[in-house]
């Protein structure tokens, strides 16, 4: 990695650390959501950007994580600190079970199937009234219990909690894509048959990437549940999956940090049209079409072009 990129990352983390010191609660709130979406887009990038399969159901895993974590704490009296890892593992295993048959499907079929899966999860959340309280939404979720004397019911504490796990997750993803596993994933993206022929167990690695990506989305969901403390199925409908795809593409797929930048930039533009919420998705789809037309590699592609790399 270039020195400039390292400096950029360090500076952004420092800025993120100091934001709550001077920003208003509204800004902190928006940045928390942007960071949650950054976790989602970064984990989405592992599957679609690095491994290849185009998926449209990331919000489904986000929602599963959010509801799992909320219900674990509400129904069993678990604390957030117990529910958080359990949620991650459960969504990981669930995705492995779904992904194993689904990833045998290739190309457009897989994309359409994930689209359906996302809708199916949404229907499940909406209709299982006894479990999820359906369209009325799930209330009364507790903030994480205080540890080390930090009270997590305040917005600033939530901010640092999300930032902490966000940096941890992105760091993990960075190590993962630089590792042998990451190189195997890229080889699958570039040419699946060739990867198979040189002895890479492609179906194993695809399921692995799918499950890790889903598990991390589940963790983001858990953080969201205990920060926002109210869950509604529409927060995890297919539009949200679509939003994750657009954020990742705007940033630049297959670059890990691109999708994170994308999440921030898109969230910023969405906040500009906050007074007119019906324009949000119009803006998003126009952004997607513009990216496809002019710079399929996204913002990272633009940065690279300015710096004169290929």
């Amino acid at each position, binding site marked *: 990695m270039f020195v400039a990129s390292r400096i950029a990352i360090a500076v952004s983390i420092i800025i993120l650390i100091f934001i709550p010191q001077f920003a208003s609660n509204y800004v902190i709130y928006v940045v928390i959501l942007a960071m949650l979406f950054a976790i989602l887009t970064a984990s989405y990038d592992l599957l679609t950007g690095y491994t290849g399969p*185009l998926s*449209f159901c990331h919000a489904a895993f986000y929602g599963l994580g959010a509801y799992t974590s909320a219900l674990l704490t509400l129904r069993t009296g678990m604390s957030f600190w117990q529910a958080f890892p359990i949620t991650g593992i459960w969504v990981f295993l669930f995705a492995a079970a779904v992904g194993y*048959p*689904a990833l*045998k*499907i*290739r*190309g*457009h*079929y897989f*994309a*359409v*199937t994930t*689209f*359906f*899966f996302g*809708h*199916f999860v949404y*229907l*499940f959340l909406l*209709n299982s009234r006894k479990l999820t309280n359906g369209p009325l939404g799930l209330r009364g979720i507790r903030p994480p219990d205080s540890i080390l004397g930090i009270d997590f019911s305040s917005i600033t504490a939530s901010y640092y909690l999300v930032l902490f796990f966000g940096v941890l997750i992105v760091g993990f993803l960075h190590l993962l894509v630089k590792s042998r596993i990451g190189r195997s994933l890229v080889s699958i993206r570039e040419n699946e048959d060739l990867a198979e022929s040189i002895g890479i167990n492609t179906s194993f690695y695809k399921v692995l990437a799918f499950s890790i990506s889903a598990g991390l989305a589940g963790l983001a969901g858990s953080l969201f549940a205990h920060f926002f403390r109210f869950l509604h199925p529409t927060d995890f409908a297919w*539009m949200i999956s*679509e939003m994750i*795809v*657009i954020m990742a*593409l705007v940033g630049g797929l297959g670059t890990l940090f691109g999708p994170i930048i994308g999440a921030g930039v898109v969230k910023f533009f969405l906040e500009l049209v906050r007074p007119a919420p*019906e*324009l949000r*998705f*119009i803006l*998003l*789809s*126009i952004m*997607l*079409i513009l990216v*496809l*037309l002019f710079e*399929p590699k996204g913002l990272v592609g633009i940065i690279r072009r300015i710096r004169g790399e290929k």
Partner: protein
Amino acid sequence: MDTLLLQIGNGLIIGSIYALVALGINVIWSIADVPDFSQGAIFVVSAYISYFAVTLAKIPYVLALVLGMCVGSFMAFIFERFLYRRWRGAGRVQLLCAIALFFLWTNVVNALWTAKAKMFPAYLKGSMFGFSYMRIAVVVVAAILFVLVYLFIMKTKIGKAIRAASQESEAAQVLGININTVNSVVFMLGGALSGAAGVLVSPLYAIFPTMGDLPLLKALVVVILGGFGTVGGVLICGLGLGVLETLGAGYLSSAYQHGYAFVILIIVLTFLPKGLFGKV
């Protein structure tokens, strides 16, 4: 009237809508290699335009149907000419673009005419065997359109070119078939069918911006299950899905009426990852 028969009848009615949308998507998918999500938006926009034509301009319903088909055709033509055509061969970009268009137009409709459902005025009164004439009209018009499309693909010269291009695109071009023309024609055909489906379904339910979502998803399932290139396969799968879904809603759980298609899709694709007919 027996409830079971009534439900099968309703299943066939909604199934013929799925089959209409699926037929267009099927032809487009087999020629242009893109699951054209934007047909879902065309479905909605045509329904709204014909609604305004009927309520504001007071034109007769039959003309509104034709208008809806023209609007659908035109939109699909524009999408193909100015967007999909740039990325021929890059299926992933086309798919993303299709989804963006679907997303864009549903939300444009939402912004222009609000999410509030509008009631399409009834154009026919009375009923037969427990089905209103309007419901029967859906099946009749769908059947006519199916026959016309079948004749178009099997009997006309351009239909022959479409069939050739769907089997072997490059060889077809070598033989002098203009692939651009073929693409334009299939997109316009698809748009017209989706437009017709949108206008046909609106008097039965209400019209609202997200009315295209479910028919689109069901049509995609029908295309994947029904195989490519066969008008009959699409018809059977479309009607079959409509009936299964209505029966499932009646006898199992109505909450999951729109989930059955997914369950069927997963079961079939688990055992036959390339769909029932194994192309692509």
